[in-house]
């Protein structure tokens, strides 16, 4: 087991660049997720780590070992595929032991390891069944067991839960995380589903157009997105275009449509620069009358109000013409369409997007 380091990886196909100058340091035992829309280069990055494709330039290290150019079968990796890719002509236990047989384990050792793994994935009773005779969730667990049977340097997972229904997907997220933690294995997970990434990862790498937009813990990425793309991709967000008016200690004062807005964030931008400010809908309070402390308060009119069970989703059209989304507890005094309201948020609940 080891960490994985990508050094200035570039992968281009003709004139199109699939992965552009990606450097990444994956720590030992870490669960790292590559997140992004389709075509962002996340799967290409995974395939580069697996060795099925070779980078145009750059280097890949597993621990201290340079594995660039080494064939997949010699990289000591485990991989879980979106379609499971279980061998249909082999039973569950034969599937699990596939890598062990290929790596010439002794018979007794194979049997012991397969039994251990069947216990880990809680599928002892299905040992002699064929992949066509087990459910999708079970197949996925078998695929994981097969991938980790010969302890891999790194476990790669390519949208492994994509084919499962929502409920099973949530159970499997917890299950995958548990198996990964129990084995203490380094895992790289690819998904386009931001909630999946948030639920499972130690760190998330948000990718777009072949480059890394941001790397950080789920909490960090959610509350401090660096770019409009990241803010929009992870959860709901309101983005307001503002101008930097002054900086004082760690408070930046912004000008939004003539209104003063304060953000608790240090930036190195000059006064007068146009920036985007991101505010999460759940961090915005909505009131009928102006509060006593009129900080970060904007006036508007309710243009839409949706009740969706645990939250009330309200859209407020501001005086500037921008629309702002607010999520609040559904209380008895709901806001009528067309009523004037005030929205406000705390300086620490908004973040300035640098690009």
């Amino acid at each position, binding site marked *: 087991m080891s960490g994985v380091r990508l050094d200035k990886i570039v992968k281009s196909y003709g004139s199109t660049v699939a992965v552009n100058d990606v450097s990444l340091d994956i720590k030992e035992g870490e669960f790292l997720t590559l997140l992004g829309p389709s075509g962002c280069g996340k799967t290409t990055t995974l395939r580069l780590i*697996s*060795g*099925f494709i070779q980078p145009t330039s750059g280097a890949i290290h597993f621990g201290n070992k340079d594995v660039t150019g080494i*064939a*997949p*079968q010699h*990289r000591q*990796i*485990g*991989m879980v*595929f*979106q*379609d499971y*890719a*279980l*061998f*249909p*002509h082999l039973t569950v236990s034969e599937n699990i032991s*596939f*890598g062990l047989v*290929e*790596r010439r384990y002794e018979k007794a050792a194979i049997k012991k390891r397969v039994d251990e793994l069947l216990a880990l994935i809680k599928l002892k009773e299905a040992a002699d069944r064929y992949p066509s005779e087990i459910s999708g969730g079970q197949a996925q667990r078998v695929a994981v067991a*097969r*991938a980790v*049977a*010969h302890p891999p340097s790194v476990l790669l997972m390519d949208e492994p839960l994509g084919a499962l229904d929502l409920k099973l997907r949530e159970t499997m997220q917890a299950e995958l995380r548990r198996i990964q933690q129990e084995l203490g294995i380094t895992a790289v997970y690819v998904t386009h589903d931001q909630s999946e990434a948030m639920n499972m990862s130690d760190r998330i790498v948000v990718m777009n157009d072949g480059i890394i937009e941001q790397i950080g813990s789920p909490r960090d990425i959610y509350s401090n997105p660096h770019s409009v793309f990241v803010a929009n991709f992870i959860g709901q967000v309101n983005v307001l275009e503002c101008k930097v008016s002054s900086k004082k200690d760690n408070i930046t004062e912004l000008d939004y449509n003539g209104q003063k807005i304060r953000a608790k964030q240090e930036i190195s931008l000059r006064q007068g620069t146009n920036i985007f400010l991101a505010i999460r809908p759940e961090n915005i309070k909505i009131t009928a009358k102006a509060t006593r402390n009129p900080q970060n308060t904007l006036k508007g009119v309710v243009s839409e109000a949706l009740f969706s069970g645990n939250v009330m989703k309200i859209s407020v059209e501001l005086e500037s013409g921008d629309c702002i989304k607010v999520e609040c507890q559904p209380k008895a005094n709901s806001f009528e369409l067309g009523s004037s309201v005030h929205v406000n948020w705390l300086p620490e609940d908004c973040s300035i997007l640098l690009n």
Partner: protein
Amino acid sequence: MENRWIAYLIPPFIVTLLLVAGSQFVFIQNSFYQDLGLGRTGTDLTLVNYLKFFTDSFYLKTFWITIKVSAIAALLTLFLGFPIAYVVARMKSKLAMFLLAGIVVSTFVTIVIKVFGLIIIFSADGVINKTLLNLGLIERAYSIIGTQEGVVIGLMHFTIGFSVLLLYSVVVTVPPSLEYAAQIHGASRLRVYQRVIIPLCAPGFVVGGLMIFNMCMGAFTSAALLGGGRVLTLPVLVQRTVMMEVKYSTAASIAFVLLVSVILINLFSLIAIRRLRSARLVVA
């Protein structure tokens, strides 16, 4: 709803049945009367034609040669067809469609033209002989016409297109991700073939091999032209017996032996495969 339309299929079915089964019946029935030559037959039902077939070493040798060249041709065609089918099936570009179209078109070019092509290439002063002579690999020109090797080459030429198309349809059912999975979990390319691709394609090999074998057993043109009268297979023998010796009953009995033996060989092969499959050596 759908059943209503089945009624419309009954008339063509009856016509086909009469034409195929009827003519076969007359033909086969004929084989059970003694052959008196020149198309005349005896009046009593008898097995004398069959007894003659199975006691005459000439017929038995022909029978054996037919099975041998067909089996060799079928096996070699599978070996030759599989790599082509595999490469085309795994091709991601549009070239694959052009190649497949080319295979289909060339497969349906009449066998006479193809065999004459073969004869030109392999003839004593053809390209291959000349090249080999010039390279000093052989001392004198070698003709394939009238040799069993020649017949095998002819049969392979006749069936290779079918085998590629058949195996292509088998290979495309094996998802490439299975190969990736095998490779990533430690299997070399060779082991990927051994443990994944070949076992998964095995049923296709069996069925495809049998189909090609059947085609070879019944192949007339390539066997007749490349056999050159010196290598006889059953279809060629049937033709000669009818056209040159005018022995209809004898020809009918030979043809019936050919038909029954092909059916039996297929049946036994499939039963054997099923046995193997239940012993889990081959997969469904």
